[in-house]
């Protein structure tokens, strides 16, 4: 154990992720938490492409990639195949935000409803990064992407992020959590909790992308931390329908966070105020839920 984390590495070096890739770091820790007895299902995306360029693979665990939208469906098949052979393994379905919020939503919803058993991890970098930074329903408002460029008339993406954790929680799953790659120990704990929960668990990990978010690669952790500390990316768990919010004692100014990244470079002061208002609204909702302990 090092820093309370499994010292064994399951994701070999030599993969072709960009320098400073949030996802590569996140997956390293997700696998450490899951351990030896784990099978990986991976949707098409950056992770799949940079980790399995034939004949090389970074995966030291059994791994399958099928298509873009069906990680949850393939995981269901694997779970049932193991079950009927009286075998048990951790099953991790790994996908990006595009492969989860958009095209993967149906398969995930179906798998949850059927009470399959696996942990679904969504690496949230807020766009279809692997195909060139196109907008997804996880794209933040005013974020510049290649399909929502910051134009004279329209200023980047004009829609707020889809509230994916709540959509999943509404399925009455036992464990939903958000996390940030800036806290690997937190990721470790949450993945462990997720794997030990009944049914399908959902963990969404903020995974900054230096290329897509337009910042210098060394700042991945700083930005992931700031996203949390400005309340821009709330960190919470929903266990058996009850929300527990990670409180931010001394919140930082979201303006600093936005200014660090080229994807928000063009945001004007009105838009910053709008973002601040939205953050406060969302935060108050979460606080209410946390305080009341009401079951979602």
């Amino acid at each position: 154990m090092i820093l309370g984390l499994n010292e064994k590495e399951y994701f070999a070096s030599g993969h072709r992720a960009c320098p400073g890739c949030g996802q590569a770091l996140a997956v390293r820790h997700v696998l450490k938490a899951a351990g030896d007895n784990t099978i990986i299902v991976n949707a098409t995306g950056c992770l799949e492409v940079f980790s399995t360029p034939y004949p090389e693979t970074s995966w030291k665990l059994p791994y399958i990639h099928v298509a873009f939208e069906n990680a949850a469906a393939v995981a269901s098949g694997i779970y049932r195949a193991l079950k009927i052979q009286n075998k048990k393994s951790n099953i991790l379905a790994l996908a990006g935000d595009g492969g989860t919020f958009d095209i993967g939503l149906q398969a995930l919803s179906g798998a949850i409803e059927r009470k399959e058993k696996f942990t679904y991890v969504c690496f949230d970098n807020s766009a279809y990064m692997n195909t060139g930074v196109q907008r997804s329903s996880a794209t933040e408002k005013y974020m510049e992407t290649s399909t929502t460029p910051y134009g004279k008339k329209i200023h980047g993406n004009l829609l707020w992020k889809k509230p994916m954790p709540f959509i999943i929680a509404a399925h009455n799953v036992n464990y939903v959590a958000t996390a940030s790659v800036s806290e690997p120990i937190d990721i470790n704990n949450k993945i462990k909790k997720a794997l030990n929960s009944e049914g399908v668990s959902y963990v969404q990990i903020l995974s900054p992308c230096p290329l897509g978010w337009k910042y210098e690669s060394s700042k991945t952790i700083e930005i992931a931390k700031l996203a949390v500390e400005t309340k821009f990316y709330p960190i919470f768990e929903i266990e058996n329908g009850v929300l527990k919010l990670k409180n931010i004692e001394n919140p930082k100014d979201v303006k600093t966070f936005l200014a660090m990244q080229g994807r928000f470079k063009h945001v004007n002061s009105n838009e910053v105020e709008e973002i601040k208002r939205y953050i406060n609204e969302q935060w108050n909702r979460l606080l209410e839920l946390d305080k009341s302990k009401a079951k979602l």
Partner: protein
Amino acid sequence: MELKIGAIIENPGNSLKNKRAGWRSFRPIWDNKKCTQCGLCWMYCPDNAIYIKDKKRSKTNLDYCKGCCICASVCKFNAIQIVKEK
């Protein structure tokens, strides 16, 4: 090279044979005197290019370091300096 049925890869983690050194524009230089062995750089390296064995942090493996400089940025003790790659 034998092409296995269905393009399956039977050597788990064989990406290790891919040494990425050529990608680097910057290189981390580790000062083991300033290092307090806190382990943060090990924890935050996306490429697992920093090893800790028997609680001791060893020199960064430059075969796999891509020069992202996250290690230098998270080090609280200035034990990692960044220099431009030749």
